[in-house]
């Protein structure tokens, strides 16, 4: 990250050419443009890219806090509410002096925050209404002031429009310098106050008991956010700047559960979106940078929304389906075990098979359905079928699994009747659910608690640990013929 700031500072020495879009300068041949992009020849391109990356980094980092604190639309409010401040700053300095504009904008942002909290304290308006109200009325005042400035004889509106739509290509060295300063400040403060901010974000009360000044910290993070928004507005515009705060951070929020990783990831995603957006807008003549940055971010978000390893929608659906299929397989194995047990053969000889008819009777389903289950078991390597397809044998792994499940089931039944005083005829359904979930360690504890029982409440034997783990060894030694 420091490296990037260095690059940005180096780039500041270059002059800047004002092109309305990054791609305006040359021919529209996409391939040629791509080559030009990666050769980093143009000064204006380098400035624009540095600016975009800095904005992505800064907004991504601060967005992490905004999103976890459920203040996502505060960014939206601030970005609109600073408009009157920007215009007044411009008016005061009579030029587009970034420092004056920044001061004006920060003051307006502070005023907006102050008015919101005052409204929240003194009226019964809901927080969302207050946000929308402050946003729109400050913005209205800003637009009105903008009109006044444009009427002035001196009021060459020079570049104030830039704040509304943003022009990454029109960034000057000074603008990028401001972005670098804002980003550096955010990095330093977030690094320095990381633990305090963690307390602020997740447990204000805890932070207070530690003696931290929560109000002050809130002010610091809001000020940083306002600063980030103001400098970023020149690159992406007033509406889309809140996207740069929210989208990378929400994407990171779907990918990790740890705050430091979330911040890092969010910053990286912000930069990636900014880079892709800048590159994309360089490819064609009519492609504005800001919207492309946001859309690139939205694509990342969509990918995370669907395929995030833990929180993705598709991933979760697949995981559920896998779990259901596993439970189904285990139930079939259990039924096979039960049939063999009824024949007095369970654990005696794995060479004995179960007919399809017996299995379907045990599972109370049609032979066709059972055939489906058997195919599933064979595919999973838990059972084999005789030549004619009617008799089913355990594989060693299948037998082991079947015993483990039966053991889980019967131990849980016993635990419920003994420890929780359930009557024996009320425990089956619960055991049916939990047998697929119990881990090995839990089962061991259960068995110890129940003093290594041998029969369940219904008088059926509980397979022992040795019986489960012994099977595999025995099979290997015995070299059973059905394989």
């Amino acid at each position, binding site marked *: 990250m420091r490296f990037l700031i260095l690059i940005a500072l180096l780039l500041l020495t270059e002059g800047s050419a004002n092109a309305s879009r990054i791609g305006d300068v040359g021919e529209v041949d996409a391939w040629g443009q791509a080559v030009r992009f990666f050769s980093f020849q143009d000064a204006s391109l380098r400035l624009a890219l540095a600016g975009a990356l800095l904005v992505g980094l800064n907004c991504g980092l601060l967005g992490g806090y905004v999103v976890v604190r459920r203040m996502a639309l505060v960014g939206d409010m601030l970005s609109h509410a600073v408009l009157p401040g920007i215009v007044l700053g411009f008016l005061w300095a009579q030029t587009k002096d970034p420092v004056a504009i920044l001061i004006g904008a920060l003051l307006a942002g502070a005023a907006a925050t102050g008015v919101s909290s005052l409204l929240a304290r*003194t009226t019964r*308006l809901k927080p969302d209404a207050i946000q929308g109200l402050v946003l*729109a009325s400050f913005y209205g005042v800003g637009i009105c002031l903008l009109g006044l400035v444009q009427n002035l004889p001196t009021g060459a509106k020079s570049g104030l429009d830039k704040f509304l739509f943003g022009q990454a290509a029109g960034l000057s060295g000074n603008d990028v310098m401001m972005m670098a300063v804002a980003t550096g400040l955010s990095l330093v403060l977030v690094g320095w106050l990381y633990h305090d901010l963690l307390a602020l974000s997740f447990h204000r009360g805890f932070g207070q008991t530690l003696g931290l000044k929560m109000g002050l910290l809130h002010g610091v993070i809001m000020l940083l956010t306002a600063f980030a928004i103001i400098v970023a507005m020149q690159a992406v515009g007033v509406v889309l700047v809140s996207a740069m705060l929210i989208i990378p951070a929400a994407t990171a929020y779907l990918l990790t559960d740890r705050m430091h990783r979330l911040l890092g990831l969010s910053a990286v995603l912000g930069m990636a979106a900014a880079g892709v957006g800048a590159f994309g807008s360089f490819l064609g003549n009519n*492609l504005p940078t800001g919207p492309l940055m946001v859309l690139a971010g939205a694509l990342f978000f969509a990918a995370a929304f669907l395929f995030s390893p833990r929180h993705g929608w598709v991933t979760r659906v697949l995981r559920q389906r896998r779990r259901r299929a596993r439970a189904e397989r285990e139930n079939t194995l259990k039924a096979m075990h039960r049939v063999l047990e009824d024949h007095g053969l369970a654990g005696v000889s794995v060479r004995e098979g179960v007919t399809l008819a017996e299995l379907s009777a045990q599972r109370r389903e049609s032979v066709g359905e059972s055939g489906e289950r058997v195919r599933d078991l064979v595919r999973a390597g838990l059972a084999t079928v005789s030549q004619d397809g009617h008799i089913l044998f355990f594989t060693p792994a299948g037998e082991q699994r079947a015993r483990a499940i039966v053991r889980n089931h019967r131990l849980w039944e016993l635990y419920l009747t003994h420890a929780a005083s359930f009557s024996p005829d009320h425990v089956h359904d619960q055991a049916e659910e939990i047998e697929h979930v119990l881990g090995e360690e839990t089962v061991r504890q259960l068995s110890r608690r129940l003093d290594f029982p041998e029969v369940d409440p219904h008088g059926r034997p509980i397979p022992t640990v040795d019986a489960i783990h012994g099977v595999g060894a025995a099979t290997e030694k015995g070299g059973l013929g059905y394989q």
Partner: protein
Amino acid sequence: MMALCGLGVLGQAVGLNGRLAATEAVVTGGMLDLIPAFDWQKVVVAPWTVDIGLYGWMMLMAFLVTTACGLIGNYLLLRRLALVGDAISHSVLPGLVAGFLIFGSLGIGPMLVGAVLAGVLTTVLIELIHSHSRVKADAAIGITFCSLFALGVLLINVYAGQVHLDAECVLYGELSHVPWAEQVTVLGVSMPLPVLVMGVATGIVALLTGLFYKELLISSFDAGLAAAFGFRPRVIHYTLMAMLSLVVVAAFESVGAILVIAMLILPGATAQLLSTRLPVCFGLSVAHAALSSVLGVHLGLWLGCSLAAAVVVAGTGLFGLAWGVSLMGRRRVEIESGSA
């Protein structure tokens, strides 16, 4: 009647503006030339006499927009959907562009279809993100409307040659840019087409809020009870959102995407500061709409800035007034209860 009402509030407007000008002059020091001289003839008299043909329609237009938005806005506030209004006002943009590109015209039909579809799509996407991931509702709103708005701006840029939508017009909107010249005659009265369209939209909104008053009321305050009555809260929700998109589109041309949020929230918020009864709130919202549009047009004429923004500024002023009144009321209650 209208003129009388207008004259009644004029004195107040002048007082308010005068004070505003004074404070600004103090604050900004050397920027006295920022506030144009107050020309009584041009600002106050002309709109009601010589130029009534233009400014009368503008005030009516502003009033219609603010009323329609205010009526829906009351429900948005009650249902804590104020920011969904914000979202939809931005995300109808790609719908407008898509409607234009598919049907190839800027007619009212394609625009409305595109916008209503975009509005419903926004609602569906927000719900989808919110209910199928751990992203919170506020972030879901932000993601959805920013992405859709970005898509809209991109489409406008790519098809710049074909689409007449100007991105700036979308953001600002401007009462005086509305095509006032297109006249249509309805019932013997010749009126500008945009006013007719907005009038119809406002009429539909008023009619629907009137017809389904009970359903909206119950489902806003107690969704469970509404469901028990068989009102189908989801249908009501989506209908409300479709209605919102319709109003937003109809208002687009005159006020723009961002200022429409002010129109949605300000009347309702002002009314709810002053009353706890919904019918009273509706009345107050309409009054707020009327006052702010008349005051706003005068303010805009005086300052020479965007009339739509001036209407918002006037509305903000009225909100401030209501806030002050409600604060004083509260203090009086506190004093009375303290002494008793």
